[in-house]
């Protein structure tokens, strides 16, 4: 249970990062840390993803806030980050730590699913699957969530899908 007085967010974030680092290095996982504004991303190699997730869950990061995927067509990769935080661990509650992996960009990229670790990732993984076409191995129910299957085939959030916007005169009937 969170208590008054309100705490300084950056110190909580620092504490959470330390905790996450300790949890990962105790399992012998290699990682690199990237700083964002208001959060840290811990990037691991693909084979460490499930082990790292289990370690972080044990360290108290109990749910996924956002499964953030960014497409970098120039570098030919997807950056896939599970942004995590904690409800039940008072010390680190609210601090956002990302557990990320870089996926090579291809037609059918795939990563191991973390739904078994965090149930809260289930719908977000389905969402990423339909928008980016990234397949999650071992996901219990991998179907498109928001889009219909033909639209999901277009992988709408990849950078090579370009939105065409109508101009100001479209929709204006010619005669008065």
């Amino acid at each position, binding site marked *: *249970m*969170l*208590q*008054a*007085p*309100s705490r300084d967010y950056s110190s909580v974030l620092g504490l959470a990062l330390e905790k996450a680092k300790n949890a990962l290095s105790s399992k012998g996982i290699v990682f690199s840390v990237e700083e964002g504004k208001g959060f840290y991303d811990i990037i691991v190699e693909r084979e460490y993803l499930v082990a790292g997730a289990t370690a972080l869950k044990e360290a108290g990061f109990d749910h996924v806030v956002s499964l953030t995927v960014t497409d970098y067509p120039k570098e030919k990769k997807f950056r896939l980050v599970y942004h995590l935080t904690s409800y039940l661990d008072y010390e680190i509650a609210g601090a956002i730590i990302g557990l990320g992996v870089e996926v090579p960009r291809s037609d059918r990229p795939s990563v191991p699913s973390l739904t078994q670790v965090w149930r809260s990732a289930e719908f977000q993984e389905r969402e990423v699957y339909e928008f980016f076409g990234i397949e999650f191995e071992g996901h219990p129910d991998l179907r498109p969530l928001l889009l219909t299957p033909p639209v999901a085939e277009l992988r709408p959030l990849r950078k090579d899908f370009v939105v065409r*916007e109508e*101009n*100001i*005169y479209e*929709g*204006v*009937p*010619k*005669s*008065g």
Partner: protein
Amino acid sequence: MPPKVAVKPLPKRGGLLAGVSDNLAALMIGIKYFLNPKRFSIYYPKEYPELRKGYRGFIILNKQKCISCAACARICPSAAMKMIRVPVPHPKEPEKTVMKQFPVINYQRCIFCGYCVDICPTEALYHVNYHDIVYENLAEMFWDLDTFQKEPEYPTAEEGIPVRLMIHEEYGLLKVPAREKQG
């Protein structure tokens, strides 16, 4: 004083007595409002709400102030504004004309966010305080430069009585006539 978490117990209600009294309380409050509804409905076309000054209604162009900077067209989130080139008299030599850019607006797309009014460096655009105008066809909603400079006719005002909704402690909103009756 910083905010804090407060754990509260859920108010429990049970037993025959509470059941009877709660039923009666619900019935009484119903009957209270049945006798005095305290309603604030506006009988719209017969009455219409007169909106405050500063309401973000239709946007009108004051052509004299426009400096053709195109900021309004660029900030428009729904791409409803567009700059067109029209000939205007040359400022120094009246017999010559020069081409100048002015915005026009497509009200099919306008979302009344007011960004164009706020970005205009010379206050050439302004809001009027009404928005409920019906058009007979879509083409009319595309305003050309002449229409854009005139405040549109407001037929509701001709048919109805203006009223104003006042926030009231007892009634929530209270309908009051917006103006004193003439005569």
